[in-house]
């Protein structure tokens, strides 16, 4: 249940067996069924979640009722609405399981205890936040400057194996294009690869 968490932490910071045993006592094991919510708009996000198994999506809904997908969270990824989690304010986001999921959740209180007891986690979460910032910045620049085809190709590069697990309409929503445009791009790419 905790193998992937340990692997991911160990990629960034060294952790003794005792430290990891303590770490395990702070995480809440949680299973979600497909389409079950981890967080719904208007609620305060009480947890940061680590995905041991499954796939989730984070999305916002605009005033017209259109969904905008911000993130897909695969195995080994962390998922939360950080603003809501850190500031204890109502979330503007929804986090929904797209498959059956196994998660490890940590509350802010436990998270702070973890940082206090094992200071190396300060580095771990700093690097995690840095990486998140870099990805967000790249995505913002991409949204402003890339063509729809470039966005799609970059998405496929950054999310290998995604096509088998994520419906096209959701990929289109993530890229900020219509599903018709995505379909056209995919046809064009297929044509090019035949030549």
């Amino acid at each position, binding site marked *: 249940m905790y193998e992937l968490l340990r692997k991911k932490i160990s990629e960034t910071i060294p952790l003794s067996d005792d430290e990891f045993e303590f770490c395990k006592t702070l995480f*809440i094991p949680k*299973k979600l069924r497909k389409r079950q*919510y981890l967080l*719904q708009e208007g609620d*305060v996000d009480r947890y940061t979640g680590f995905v041991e198994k499954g796939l989730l999506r984070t999305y916002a809904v605009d005033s017209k009722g259109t969904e905008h997908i911000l993130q897909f969270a695969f195995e080994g990824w962390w998922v939360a609405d950080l603003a809501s989690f850190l500031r204890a304010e109502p979330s503007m986001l929804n986090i929904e399981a797209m498959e059956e999921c196994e998660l490890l959740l940590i509350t802010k209180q436990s998270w702070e205890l973890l940082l206090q007891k094992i200071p190396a986690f300060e580095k771990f979460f700093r690097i995690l936040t840095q990486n998140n910032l870099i990805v967000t910045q790249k995505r913002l620049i991409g949204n402003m400057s890339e063509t729809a085809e470039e966005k799609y190709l970059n998405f496929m590069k950054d999310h290998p194996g995604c096509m088998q697990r994520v419906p096209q309409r959701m990929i289109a929503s993530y890229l900020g294009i219509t599903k018709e445009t995505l379909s056209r791009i995919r046809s064009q790419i297929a044509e090019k690869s035949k030549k």
Partner: protein
Amino acid sequence: MATKKTIAVITSSPAKASAIADAFLHEKCNLLLLANETDGYDKVSAAIKKKSRSCKTEVHHCMKDGCWEADAIIMDVGREDEEDVASLIKEVATQKVVINITHDCDDKKLQQLLPYSRVTTLSEIPSSFKDIIGDD
């Protein structure tokens, strides 16, 4: 919108499950009725479905999976089975609220068996579990 809470209910009889489920009739939640022998529990689940629109129930024989899915766990199994149930659910009950219904209110045994869970002991079934489990 509030995310629906999932509550695992482990009891030694369908009658006990029914009594606990009654406290959730007006709650928006998923109740997982867990027992090794599930005979009689389907009737409890069907009765809850008739009485409540907001509370959804399901019957499962796998306690570990049910508690893994749950946000909180309610146990009413009798002292002789406590240890067996605790060993089954220990791994998936970390940091979760576990409510133990027993006549021995000073009982600290379950907290020792589930050291990383937040065990609350009650001598009887309350009219609502909201204050203990929380409604956020």
